[in-house]
């Protein structure tokens, strides 16, 4: 069934009305060299039944592995109520809330989401969300450049301990904006951003510094010192945080003496399933004084003509449909459904629930690291405290060990060597609250077997 609503007669009568003989003429102005007649690599159509079957087969290929993977996306228990409510028709199929009079429910959910995110990050304002954590960071950096008018360098310090994907996305999005990204190394022993290297920039014009918490290695940065450095040197601190970790950790708005003015990150841990990588959502929060440079939708609470409270999109003069090319961003949407799930997730857990989940994640990972490092030759690479991930150095090939474990139904970690060539045979492991102490014992036993098997092989 074609999903084009016009019949041949409709098309012909429309073409007649505008005085055009055939559809092709409408595309005349596009040079033939730029047009592709055939789309390569797209297979022929399948029926609905065939597609359904293919999807089930593909899903089964994922298996039911016990996953100790993290590296930016995290498995958490999502209470059943979250998606039961989120997939109600009122939320699931609701369109962009431009018409406030017809969208009070959607607008209220976003307003409550914004309130929760602002509270969680210790800042005053949150937008209605962005696509994902990496693009949220890119937007946060562009925002920092607009905000920090006393800095003329457009120079951003970005730690090497940030997720490599985030650095790539930031490079892609900022590359055409004359922004100078300077990578800051991490200390090889602690895993934290190297403060000695940072001192080299004491007398330079730095527009902003990105501060991850935790960083890609799971390590907790000395965020107070980094935030103070930023404040003292006229640079804006831009926090990249795991929102679930903020149930336990100091929010960015309170880092150091003055806090940092902008925070962003990946919202997936708040109620979004892993789903092979998406959809997820990005969040971005800031101080109220920076609100006009905040990109994305923003919902506000107001009073209607009868004096009753209501919700509406606000400060839209920042956005594309009003400001055109001088808008704060070409972002003109939000991840409505993911935000709905996150709002319900946070509402169900509450601050105490979030704190307990975050603490349990931390405890599980500490237990895993303690048990794993009892195996001869297995070492924890970094000495600084972690949140719920850690880097382990193995005495044998990481690839062999991970393959061995996967064959036994356990996803043992993410190998780091392809991103960080220094870290041969090193893996990033994560244990969230979803892993029981038995799971961890099974992991460690399997890791021991894998290492022995690798030893026997050589």
């Amino acid at each position, binding site marked *: 069934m074609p999903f084009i609503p016009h019949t041949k007669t409709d098309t012909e009568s429309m073409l007649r009305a505008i005085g055009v003989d055939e559809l092709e003429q409408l595309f005349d102005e596009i040079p033939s060299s730029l047009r592709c007649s055939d789309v390569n690599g797209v297979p022929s159509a399948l029926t609905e039944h065939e597609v359904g079957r293919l999807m089930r087969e593909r899903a089964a290929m994922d298996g039911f592995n016990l996953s100790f993977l993290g590296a930016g996306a995290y498995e958490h228990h999502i209470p059943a109520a979250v998606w039961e409510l989120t997939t109600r028709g009122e939320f699931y199929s609701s369109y962009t809330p431009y018409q406030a009079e017809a969208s009070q429910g959607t607008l209220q959910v976003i307003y409550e989401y914004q309130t929760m995110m602002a509270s969680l990050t210790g800042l005053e304002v949150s937008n209605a969300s962005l696509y994902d954590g990496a693009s949220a960071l890119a937007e946060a950096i562009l925002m920092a450049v607009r905000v920090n*008018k*006393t800095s003329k360098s457009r120079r951003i310090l970005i730690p090497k301990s940030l997720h490599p994907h985030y650095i790539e996305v930031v490079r892609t999005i900022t590359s055409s904006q004359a922004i100078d990204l300077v990578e800051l190394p991490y200390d090889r022993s602690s895993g934290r951003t190297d403060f000695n290297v940072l001192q080299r920039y004491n007398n330079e014009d730095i527009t902003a510094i990105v501060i991850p918490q935790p960083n890609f290695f799971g390590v907790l940065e000395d965020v107070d010192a980094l935030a103070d450095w930023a404040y003292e040197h006229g640079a804006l601190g831009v926090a990249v945080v795991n929102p679930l970790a903020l149930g336990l950790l100091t929010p960015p708005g309170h880092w150091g003496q003055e806090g940092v003015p902008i925070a962003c990150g990946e919202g997936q841990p708040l109620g979004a399933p892993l789903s092979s990588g998406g959809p997820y959502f990005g969040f971005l929060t800031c101080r109220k004084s920076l609100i*006009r440079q905040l990109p994305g939708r923003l919902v506000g609470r107001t009073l209607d003509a009868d004096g009753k409270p209501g919700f509406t999109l606000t400060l839209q*003069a*920042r956005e594309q449909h*009003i*400001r055109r090319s*001088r808008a704060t961003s070409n972002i003109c949407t939000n991840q409505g459904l993911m935000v709905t799930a996150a709002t319900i997730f946070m509402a169900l857990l509450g601050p105490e629930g979030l704190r307990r989940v975050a603490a349990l994640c931390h405890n599980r990972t500490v237990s895993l690291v303690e048990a794993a490092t009892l195996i001869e030759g297995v070492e924890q690479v970094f000495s600084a405290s972690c949140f719920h991930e850690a880097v382990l150095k193995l005495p044998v090939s990481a690839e062999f060990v991970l393959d061995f474990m996967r064959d036994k139904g356990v996803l043992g970690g993410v190998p780091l060597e392809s991103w960080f060539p220094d870290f041969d045979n090193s893996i990033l492991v994560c244990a969230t609250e979803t892993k029981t102490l038995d799971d961890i014992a099974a992991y460690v036993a399997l890791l021991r077997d894998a290492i022995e098997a690798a030893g026997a092989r050589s």
Partner: protein
Amino acid sequence: MSKVPSDFKYSKNHEWIREQDDGTLICGITDHAQASLGDLVFVELPEVEDTVVSGDVCAVVESVKAASDVYCPLSGTIIKTNKALTNNPELVNSDPYGEGWLFCLRINYSAEFEELLDNESYARLLAEIDD
């Protein structure tokens, strides 16, 4: 009818310019511009020491209806901005030619200043717009 005082110069983009005793220039938006925009809620000003070129966007005035760019009427260097507008953008509405000024600048070429409209030419421009 919008006010068009005689001791000011004007640009076609509805900015006014007045020479001060020390030779520097002070700029704002005209009564016509503020009335067309409606109640202002925010004014984004240039930074002191910014170098500006005539025709560049150097400020933004945002009303409840729209955000409009303010084009720099002359080339020069910004020497002062009206900080009072940060908390009281409505001064542009209540007193566009006085307390609602936007910025002061020192210009490079006085020829540009001579090319600006006088009050009679600007009033004619407004009459044409009204037609």
